[in-house]
């Protein structure tokens, strides 16, 4: 069932009326929910950005879904990055000390190795992911979509009720 929904989301997003750039921006933004621990305060800011910026909301969901397993798999890498930055980089200690004792920023949980490591990883990944996704969506629409439209399963998925709900957030 989860797999079907993921498939639906994938198809609908890739074929939405949003431009490849909007879908790619959505995917790049949404990937943060999969890469970083979900219950982190910075994700509230990303949710707000996803709603206010003119990006594909479906792309956000797709990015989230695609990067959840990646996040789990890369936790050791995030931990290593976070430990390096928080513990083994003395030059940054004054910054962390300021942030740790600053109102609101201290609530961000930046001082956790996984949170900081995964967030930094996401920031570094954002632009490459955006450009890659934009190229991928463009290629898909140009070459794959025409062939897929003739497939019966594809038509069934596209006609489902969720598609209509999704259209409310379509760019």
């Amino acid at each position, binding site marked *: 069932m989860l797999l079907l929904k993921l498939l639906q989301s994938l198809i609908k997003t890739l074929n939405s009326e949003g431009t490849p750039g909007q879908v790619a921006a959505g995917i790049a933004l949404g990937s943060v929910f999969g890469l970083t621990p979900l219950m982190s305060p910075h994700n509230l800011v990303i949710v707000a950005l996803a709603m206010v910026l003119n990006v594909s909301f479906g792309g956000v969901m797709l990015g989230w879904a695609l990067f959840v397993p990646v996040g789990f798999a890369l936790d050791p890498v995030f*931990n290593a990055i976070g430990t390096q930055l928080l513990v083994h980089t003395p030059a940054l200690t004054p910054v962390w000390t300021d942030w*740790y*004792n600053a109102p*609101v920023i201290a609530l961000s949980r930046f001082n*956790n*190795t996984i949170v900081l490591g995964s967030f930094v990883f996401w920031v570094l990944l954002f632009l490459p992911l955006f450009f890659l996704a934009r190229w991928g969506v463009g290629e898909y629409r140009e070459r794959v979509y025409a062939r897929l439209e003739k497939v019966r399963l594809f038509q069934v998925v596209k006609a489902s009720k969720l598609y209509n709900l999704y259209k409310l957030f379509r760019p």
Partner: protein
Amino acid sequence: MKRVRLKGLIPLVLFLVAFVVAIWLLLDPLVKWGVEDVGTELVGAKVDLASADVHLFKGSVTLNGLQVTDPAHPMTNLVQAEQIVADVSLAPLLEKKLVLDTVAVRGVRFGTPRKTSGALANPGPNTGAVARAVSDWADRMHLPSLSLAGLGQVVNVAAISPDSLTTLRQAKQIAGSADSAKTAWLESLTALNPKPHIDSAAALAERLKGKNIGTLGLAGARDAAQSVKRTIDSLTALDGKLKALQADVTQGVGRLQTGVTDGLAAARRADYAYARSLLKLPAIAAPDIGPALFGRMVTDKIAPLLYWLNLAQKYMPPGLAERLDPGPKRMRASGTDARFPREHDYPTFLLRFGEASLSLGGQGAAAGNYDARVTGVTSAPTLYGKPTTFTVSRTAAAVGPTSVRASGMLDHVRRPLRDSVDVSADGITLPTVQIGAFGATLDLGKGSSQLMLARTGDSLSARWVWHSNDVTWTRQGGSVAGAAGGAGIAQAAQEMLWNTISGLKDVQVEARLSGPIASPRLAIGTNVADAVSQSLQRQLGDKVKQAEAQVRARVDSLVASQVSAARSAVDSVRSTAQQAVDEQRAKLDQAKKDLESRLKSLVGGLPIGG
């Protein structure tokens, strides 16, 4: 194309409103879960909270029905509180720091029964780590035993195994060391090869015998004087090396001799003790009997105190260095939380002032109302800058003319940590002690208890005195544990000891712990041990001494040849290596003196010869 989607503001506002409402609704359960989760991690057993009531903008938190399980007794609560009301400072919350200005605790009770077990099904690796460490500490404490079972047994000296004797091992080691040292020193002497130098110097001295400036002429005397000086310089350099070797040999021989005298004597004493322990003879000196009788009671009483002090050490560390703690539990990896404390900022946790009213129920002497106050409990004492203090005093006694007073200070502001606890109580019920060696139970009844404990860094110094003049001795019956048939002597000894101790109505036990916390020395002085010791000395002293003499003789006979070999090896070193070096130095010294005499004759006080 617009980059901002204004219509997205509506769902955003709706989302934020829903988020705030959800937090509002979930705050109470979240606080309840947090208290239970963190408390369980700290204690190592279940911590339950009936409900939490948070008034965020008033800065007030009320916790109702707190139950903290005793990790050692899962069906009993360590402590239970009806209500805890805390005034929370709001500003530090924005820095994720919890500063409690005041906390009032009502309806505190100890040792209440639980309806369900508070044991943890799957404790984490860090859960209850402090409790485990203290339990291990209590188990590690070496307490001698007092058993009369050995008195009925034949002294079996054949049971003493030579392989277990330290003296034999050490004597072999000393002999081996002496042989290898002797070889090394003689090789060094051979390498220096002083004989040709000494012989050459002696020959030169002989050649110049009777010569002077008159017989050699000025030039001849000058050349001869220069030759003599060069030889003397060469001898001086060689003498320096010989002197160093001589010092090395003297020190080494000294060490070996110390090993033979002191080392082997200490090893022999250890072997006597080992051999004696095989016979299971009772200790008859009072300092050994005290720990055997009351050691377990003392460690059981001290362990909870150490638990709390260790807990305070773990969660109230001194200094401002960054700290690393395990991150929060979640489906993904927890990672590590790094803390970056800074001077003049709030610590992560601070309780400025707390007050608790305690009621101990029942008709016992300790029943009554108590008032407890605590100040400055914090996760970063260096930031707070003041020590944690606490006092407990009795406000109303339900029964008996009792007084209870406790106070303490945990100074973790800087290293070394300085903790002190002072407890004094009169008219309280003292413990009951099982004394297996006598087949008896000692109920200390009501009496006084005074504890003074001080800890500085890793050193502990504690004195705990129990005194009662209302003790009851009960005989459990049965024979001496471990004694086989025919244990008439042991049975008689037990009878005799029973007669001695059952007459004691006034008992004082004074325990002293000192030294490193991990392995402190325990000394227990008590009039019970004095009486037992005197009685044992009187009745069994001769028999015990006789048995001890037998085992000593056996140990001596087993180690004699090896000890003798070690002595011979050390003597051999002294007579060969040391003597050889001494001889060479003496010859060299003589040759040098002869040459100096010749030089004086040659130059006759004139400034020739360079």
